């Protein structure tokens, strides 16, 4: 499809680009695929048309937003990818797996397509209050933590911690739908706007003053894209760190482990939350926190964002997660701690593929907290 470049270049204000290459230089996937943000922007500025079908690498972008964070001229390169994906979504020419994820969200409120009625299966018998009855804090569980058996332990651990700290919290239960963070990044603007409206209304109706999420991805869109004025949006690491600092959450067990921490892009780079996850780990008795060379703002993306959980991209062989778990192993850590459901899945998979499972275990911070409580 030949896309007219000028309207999009104008809409996204690409004209300020000075072609410095900082976006492509720091792009984690540009090292292994033909994706070149700078060159794509240049094309949009100087060529009248772009054949969007000729760029399968548009699905390589993880929306880690390293380019957006570092661009000296506020060009927001990743937003161009999102807009171009939007054109593909509109034309219907999208990878089948992306279509299936979007359809699942449309029909069942989650990308796996599993029935909405099963959304609360993760609670596993533990009574959790319905937020609709009224609560001070709304806990937004998220799709992957609700449905993926590997991740379900995380919301369970969070519920135990919230309860231990005496918080008045509730969940939306089967009424909870996908936050839409990945939907927007896959280019499905219409569905995203629908989710913002429906979820926004539901969240506001609860009347909670705080909203806490399991996933940095939900956290990101609620905090930055929903306009939830008057509701404080938190990632769980912020809340848990706060509870520990206030003395409302104490640890009774030791976890004698050497632990390294992987900064998720949507928590670290995009929302500058670097210290709270580390504060939690340091507070756990017995944990020795060691850092990978690339940490905080220089953390390497696990390749799970931007819809990449549902589309493989053009270079399957050299996964960034493979490189990342090797970096983690080099620190001598026994545990690679994460604070994001996507990171948990991509990195755990990589540990197995790389044959590091004897040495390195991937765990969510909440799993460690749960062991120590």
């Amino acid at each position: 499809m030949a896309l007219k470049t000028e309207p999009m270049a104008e809409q996204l204000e690409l004209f300020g680009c000075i072609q410095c290459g900082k976006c492509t230089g720091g792009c984690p996937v540009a090292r292994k695929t033909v994706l070149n943000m700078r060159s794509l922007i240049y094309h949009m500025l100087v060529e009248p048309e772009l054949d969007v079908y000729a760029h399968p690498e548009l699905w390589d972008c993880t929306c880690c937003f390293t380019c957006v964070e570092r661009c000296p001229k506020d060009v927001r390169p990743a937003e161009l990818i999102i807009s171009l994906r939007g054109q593909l979504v509109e034309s219907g020419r999208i990878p089948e797996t992306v279509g299936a994820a979007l359809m699942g969200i449309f029909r069942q409120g989650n990308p796996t397509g599993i029935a909405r009625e099963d959304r609360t299966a993760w609670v596993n018998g533990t009574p959790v209050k319905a937020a609709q009855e009224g609560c001070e804090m709304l806990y937004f569980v998220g799709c992957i933590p609700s449905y993926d058996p590997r991740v379900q332990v995380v919301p369970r651990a969070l519920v135990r911690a919230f309860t231990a700290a005496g918080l008045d919290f509730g969940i939306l239960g089967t009424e909870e739908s996908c936050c839409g963070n990945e939907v927007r990044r896959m280019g499905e603007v219409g569905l995203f706007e629908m989710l913002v409206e429906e979820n926004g209304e539901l969240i506001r109706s609860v009347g909670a003053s705080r909203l806490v999420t399991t996933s940095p991805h939900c956290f990101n869109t609620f905090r930055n894209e929903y306009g939830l004025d008057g509701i404080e949006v938190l990632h769980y690491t912020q809340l848990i760190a706060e509870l520990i600092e206030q003395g409302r959450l104490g640890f009774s067990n030791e976890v004698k482990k050497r632990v390294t921490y992987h900064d998720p892009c949507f928590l670290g780079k995009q929302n500058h939350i670097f210290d709270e996850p580390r504060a939690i780990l340091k507070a756990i008795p017995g944990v020795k926190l060691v850092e990978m060379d690339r940490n905080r703002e220089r953390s390497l993306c696990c390749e799970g964002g931007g819809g990449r959980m549902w589309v493989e991209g053009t270079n399957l062989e050299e996964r960034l997660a493979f490189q990342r778990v090797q970096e983690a192993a080099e620190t001598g850590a026994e545990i690679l701690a994460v604070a994001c459901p996507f990171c948990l899945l991509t990195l755990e998979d990589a540990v197995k593929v790389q044959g590091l499972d004897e040495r390195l275990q991937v765990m969510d911070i909440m799993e460690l907290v749960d062991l120590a409580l």
Partner: protein
Amino acid sequence: MVREPAALVIGGGIAGIQAALDIADAGYQVYLVEREPSVGGRMAQLDKTFPTLDCSSCILTPKMVDVGNHPNIELMTYSEVVAVEGGVGAFHATVKKKPRYVDVDKCTGCGLCAAACRMKGRVVSRFDEGIVKRSAIYVPFPQAVPLKYTVDPTACLYLTRGVCGKTFKCKDACPADAIDFEQREELVDLEVGAIIVATGFDLIDPRTKPEFGYGVYPEVMTGIEFERLSSASGPTMGKIIVNGKEPKDVVFIKCVGSRDPHTGVPYCSRICCMYTAKHAHLVRDKIPDARITVFYMDVRAFGKGYEEFYDRVKHERVIYRRGEPAEVYRRGDKLVVLAEDTLLGKPIEVEADLVVLATAVVPRTDASEVAALLGLECSPDGFFQEAHPKLRPVSTSVDGVFLAGCCQGPKDIPDTVAQAKAAASSALVVLAQCEETSPA
């Protein structure tokens, strides 16, 4: 017979020095106030100067000595202007003379005190950008004017803890009996007709660009740190040594913070292109087999002889690669600089033993306080605002107050000296007019 009214020059870098000398040479009294223990400023820290490769100290030191000896200049170092009242022709300025705890009339600059100090080798030298450590009693650098010792009140054991062993090592060592811990701050009132502000600039903290790993990797340093490392009178006697060895792969990164509204520096810092070219030349001169890469977005070689110097450096096998690096990280015993070579159109990795960051020129952290003191305005970039950007480039919104050097905006040494001479000329007009109208 010295002419009056007098002029006040605030700041003793090359701008203030030049302005003071011109006014004093015209016969007027000048008070030159510098907050550091010595005049010299940034230029004293530099190794060579572009594009002629003159030794910076060699051309600066004679001027420093001149201001020290000039009969019409009263040099007030280790002093700060704390209040200014009145107006053109009749300003009343109050200057705070900080206690040096050394009697400058007795001190001969022999340095026995520093050699004896208990804190010897333990106090970070700001002049040497932290590369070496000095004593608590010090001169900032050997060519200091005045060559008088100063006790650092933030480091001296006696001044910070009230006790320095059984006996004062410095006092015992001083053959001139110059050390005087009874000294107190003094306030001096000055009557002046015109004021020149020449307070200079700061450099951005490179930690504002965390992707470059400054403060994480010792091999990543700033341009001004490189100047001290390369300077023949510096802590390594001019040997470029990083982690105890000579670097073979050297990468320069330009525009670190500059041209970047995110860091609050939307402007071009104007000096980095040329000093980076000079640094590349110095590495080639001292390490003939080094592999030298300069990453750039644009090369701005606008001044007299500058493009020619850039050409020369390129011919010295310095590779210029177009692209602003994205990240620095460690691989084994090397650093790796990630970038896109935008001319190749592909992401690249360049190994480095030394990475030099050309950090942005920014206003002094206390520029707004100085502005408030004098009633000056600041432009949106935070530098002092000139009265008209084209036609009144050294005047300010306050009659009788003029600007010289980087306090008005980033500039190189030739432009700084030219502006200082312009400020002196403007001040002299005011002084001459006052002299004419004052009753004989």
